């Protein structure tokens, strides 16, 4: 059997597959479908300090091969998540990544510090790129200066590896990526959802109360892959690629443009055991292509 492990420098993962924040609940929900231990890691749904109700419905809108969401980061707050993590950690050895959110820089730092202190947590992912918190989709990751300040501030308060999650809606995603790594990010992950919208022509209103929502799913893969390549060309820290991944073939494409690991998101909704299938497909592709380790092809795009 192929060796699926990947090396992020600061940590080796037994598989390149990580489940993306907001698409995997708190892990527990997937225990009926497969042993989470086959995964490289799981990312918890984004968390703020306090409980949040989330946005009013509708929160989803299906588009061709895509999904618009405006969940609004509904969640139980940090204290409750700590409990959930302890419970989950007792049932599985899969590395747990906490997706840290904040209304302002101080909240980001505080939440990050809290989870950095937990033994059960492997890494932190700073979600500076959620389009559904403020109306119009503004977020720190749209601006390199803000990103640099925020990453430094958080980095000062944490001891765990810090992944910074970037937005495809940034004016210049490569500049933001550089700002993040120069400010101490241990890894970068991208992309979060693309800003999009839909209109209810009968009511003449936007489908979503916030007007814009985030687009994910297979529809965005060609766009996300290009952005991941752009960032990988300038990044000296490992890049975790995502956006529309639905097959082992997709995973290898992300590796060829330079990703060191990948996340799978929306596909988990459609197919709860997607990670299991994709793991098998990665192995099959590696065998077909006679690759012993994914590091052999990482960044090896001949362009």
């Amino acid at each position, binding site marked *: 059997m192929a060796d699926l492990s990947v090396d992020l420098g600061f940590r080796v993962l037994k598989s390149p597959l990580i489940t993306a924040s907001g698409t995997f609940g708190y892990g527990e929900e997937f225990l009926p479908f497969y042993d989470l231990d086959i995964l490289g890691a799981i990312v918890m749904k984004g968390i703020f300090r306090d409980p949040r109700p989330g946005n009013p419905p509708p*929160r989803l809108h299906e588009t061709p091969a895509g999904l618009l969401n405006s969940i609004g980061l509904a969640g139980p707050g940090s204290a409750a998540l700590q409990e959930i993590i302890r419970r989950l950690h007792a049932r599985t050895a899969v590395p747990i990544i906490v997706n840290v959110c904040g209304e302002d820089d101080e909240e980001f730092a505080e939440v990050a510090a809290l989870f950095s202190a937990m033994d059960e947590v492997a890494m932190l992912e700073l979600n500076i790129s959620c389009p559904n918190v403020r109306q119009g989709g503004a977020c720190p990751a749209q601006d390199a200066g803000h990103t640099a300040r925020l990453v430094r501030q958080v980095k000062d308060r944490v001891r765990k590896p810090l992944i910074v999650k970037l937005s495809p809606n940034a004016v210049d995603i490569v500049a933001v990526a550089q700002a993040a790594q120069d400010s101490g990010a241990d890894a970068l992950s991208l992309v979060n959802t693309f800003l999009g919208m839909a209109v209810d022509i009968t009511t003449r209103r936007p489908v979503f109360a916030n007007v814009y929502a985030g687009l994910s799913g297979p529809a965005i893969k060609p766009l996300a892959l290009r952005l991941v390549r752009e960032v990988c060309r300038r990044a000296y820290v490992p890049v975790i690629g995502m956006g529309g991944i639905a097959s082992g073939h997709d995973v290898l494409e992300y590796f060829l443009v330079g990703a060191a690991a990948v996340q799978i998101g*929306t596909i988990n909704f459609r197919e709860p055991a997607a990670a299991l299938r994709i793991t098998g497909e990665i192995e099959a592709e590696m065998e077909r292509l006679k690759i012993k380790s994914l590091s052999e092809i990482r960044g090896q795009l001949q362009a």
Partner: protein
Amino acid sequence: MQDERGLIEDARSLGGDYYLLKIAAPRNAGAAKPGNFVMVRVSPSFDPLLRRPLGILESRPPYIWLYYQARGRGTRMLAALGPGDSLDILGPLGNSFPEIPGKRVLLIAGGRGIVPLFHYAQVYAERRPLLLLYGGRTRADLQLLDRIKALRLQALFIFSEDGSLGQKGLLTDGLERIVREERADVTLSCGPEAMLARLALMLKGRSLENHASLEALMGCGFGVCHGCAVRTVSGTYRKVCDEGPVFPLEEIQWPT
């Protein structure tokens, strides 16, 4: 909860956009309780991307029956499938209607809302008296009458808005009298949002126990996406897929 490959045994068009599917899905069939639903993947294509939630009409292992209205893109693709085709079925999902022994239960079904109530009646009608109030816009919305009549209900009241079947009018027109004359203790309901909202208004302040099964947009069906939120009277949100689809009627904030 299982994601299993079901095999379509029988697929029929009943007229008026309604379809009935008989599917061999032993794991779902073995575990289904009245009120549960399944998430069905209508196509290997990514368009539509999401599965579709459909209630379980009946379950007799190894089979389940689905009864649905083909209106949009996904359900129309489903309607194109036939015997021998297979279908990914995730379920059974959600909570179920409470059994509530020893009470007089009135089932209230609007159109395709018959699904979970039919299942309920099929499981419990032998054990105790059940009443069914069934309404639709026209007779086309009131399919499955033969099967319903075979259920041994204590009474069946039928309404259609255009008078093409049963009494003419909305089923809520008959509610008042039926509740009173039949001395119902409990209502279990499922149907369009407007119907449930009207029921909530009419049943408010009475001594009945009322449970309703809700519909909502669903991304996953098993609690992870938070897409299926419904607002409660206390201002918080509940997830229809795993905290429901059955809720106390009074708990939901209905549109006014």
